[in-house]
């Protein structure tokens, strides 16, 4: 088991290095002045030359690359042009907001998806099932950002039930983690974006759970449970659903990557101060160190969560060998 985890961590580190390398060369081989991506072109020439020297931009590409790798290991992505602060510090403040939104939405999607999927498998072939499938397909066909816009229009502007913007009421300042995230105000702001993200995520666990349930329901032990005269709901949730969960979890692993992408859009719509909104703003502001750093962190987060899901899968299913 430990060997398996070590091997997976090793592959992950290699992948992070490869993805970072790709981003490094993508920025350096672009047309125009590549130094514009490291040193703000608008600052005075002497200061600029000094910075170019400091970042080693007068050196060969290979030497620059080795410096980049060294900085990467130390998690040093340089200074943001816009904020004038180290990229690492800015990103560190954004990660909790993104993760909290993501996990709340995932939790919402998985609870509804698993219960609903099991129920749909039970009702297979009926009108209710086609209705359920159609609804979930509608939410998958609807762009998350558009659902967000409509939700803000209806629930925040017209009905005024929830705030539709940001993470807390303007004017509120909190310093510590507790002051920012453990407040009623924050929870109110969390509701709409996590419902929108959850609705967007829900189709995947729902449909996979349904298919996997259909397979499990034809197994002998389900027939046995029927023969014993157990209640339907008990067979459904106690006997069948537990065994149908595995594929839902594996699919979840691959799904996290696309979920992160969808989250960028939801953060943007709700002005949620997370990594996704910041990477969009960084590119619009030509703040390349921040964009590069945020991208590498997002990619690493996705890979790390895939690793967690892989390990979970092995722990949950004793039939899988982890060699």
């Amino acid at each position: 088991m430990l060997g398996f985890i070590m091997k997976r961590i090793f592959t992950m580190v290699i992948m992070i290095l490869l993805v970072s390398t790709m981003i490094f060369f993508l920025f350096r081989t672009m047309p125009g002045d590549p130094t514009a991506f490291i040193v703000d072109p608008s600052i005075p020439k002497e200061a600029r030359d000094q910075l170019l020297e400091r970042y080693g931009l007068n050196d060969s590409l290979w030497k620059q690359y080795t410096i980049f790798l060294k900085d990467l290991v130390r998690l040093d992505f340089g200074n943001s042009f816009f904020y004038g602060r180290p990229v690492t510090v800015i990103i560190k403040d954004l990660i909790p907001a993104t993760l909290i939104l993501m996990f709340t939405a995932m939790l919402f999607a998985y609870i509804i998806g698993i219960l609903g999927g099991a129920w749909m498998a039970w009702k297979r072939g009926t009108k209710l099932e086609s209705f359920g499938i159609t609804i979930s397909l509608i939410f998958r066909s609807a762009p998350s950002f558009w659902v967000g816009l409509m939700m803000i229009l209806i629930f925040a502007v017209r009905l005024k039930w929830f705030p539709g913007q940001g993470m807390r009421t303007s004017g509120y300042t909190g310093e510590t983690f507790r002051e920012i995230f453990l407040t009623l105000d924050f929870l109110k702001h969390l509701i709409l974006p996590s419902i929108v993200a959850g609705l967007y995520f829900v189709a995947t666990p729902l449909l996979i759970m349904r298919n996997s349930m259909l397979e499990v329901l034809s197994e002998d032990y389900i027939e046995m449970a029927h023969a014993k005269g157990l209640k339907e709901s008990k067979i459904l949730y106690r006997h069948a659903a537990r065994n149908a969960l595995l594929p839902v979890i594996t699919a979840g692993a691959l799904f996290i990557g696309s979920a992160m992408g969808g989250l960028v859009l939801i953060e943007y719509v709700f002005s949620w101060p997370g990594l996704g909104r910041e990477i969009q703003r960084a590119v619009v502001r030509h703040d390349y160190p921040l964009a590069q750093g945020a991208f590498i962190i997002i990619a690493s987060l996705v890979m790390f969560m895939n690793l967690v899901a892989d390990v979970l899968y092995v722990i949950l299913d004793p039939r899988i060998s982890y060699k």
Partner: protein
Amino acid sequence: MSKTVVSTSIKSFFTSKKNSQGFFPVFINNLKRDKLALIGVILLIFFIGVGIFADFIAPYEPRERHYNEEGKIRRLEAPSKDHWFGTTDVGRDIFSQVVLGTKTALTVGILAALLVTLVGATVGIIAGYSGGVVDAVLMRIVDFFYAIPFIPFVIILSAVLKPSIWNIILAVSLLSWRTVARLVRSQVLSIAKRPFIKAAKVAGASHSRIMVKYILPNVIPLILLEMAFMVNFAIMAEASIAFLGFGDPQKPSWGQILHINFVTGNSRSAWWWTATPGLAIVLLLLSIFFITRALEEVVDPRLRRR
């Protein structure tokens, strides 16, 4: 491996009379039973019609400003007889923009899907058939592309490249072929073990001939299904990129309409401006989803209802 081999093998696949369960007969049969799939086909034909004739259907120029009788700009007017979907904050006709957006969405969707399935299927067939080192190397490349989060990567790419629909098609293709490659490969792995492939090898058929003439026809249903999913994915991707403000400024698109709507702050009040392009996206994607469900039953006979 000539072009004619490909075309005849594909033709024989579509017109296959050998078994009554050919690809299209089953699909048409499904349409008769599956009302949702039928609705999907009708909707898709409608959208394709709108896309092709967009320039004739759109009543106005998308950027034209409209004035009322008193010579004032028709700012943020709700839907009316003159402007079916209302007007924008600078008096532009939203209906015309949505109609022209159909063209962009379909162009991106279809071209990207073709490119993705072409690359993905080629890689998948070669990896699955060759096995060994070739397979291992190709699959590691696939793994690498799986590690890149899509939307953040496209945002970065749009910083490096100029915004244009061609670059969006490129970005979508670059990151999506992996899915098709992986699926096709796993199916090829099982096909390559079947006796008729061995027979072909013994008879002296070249590798390329086996891949094109014997393996390809067997994976075409899967490829078509994936292509349909990719059309949806590409349309959604284009809309998302344009919504974030990295779209092609020259081409009116649904995402771009929503971007301007959002950035100018009118998404909070002008419901007609927010709702209509989004509904267009939902209906187009839904129609393709309904069709893919019928396609899936053809590809996977276990899903067929008795």
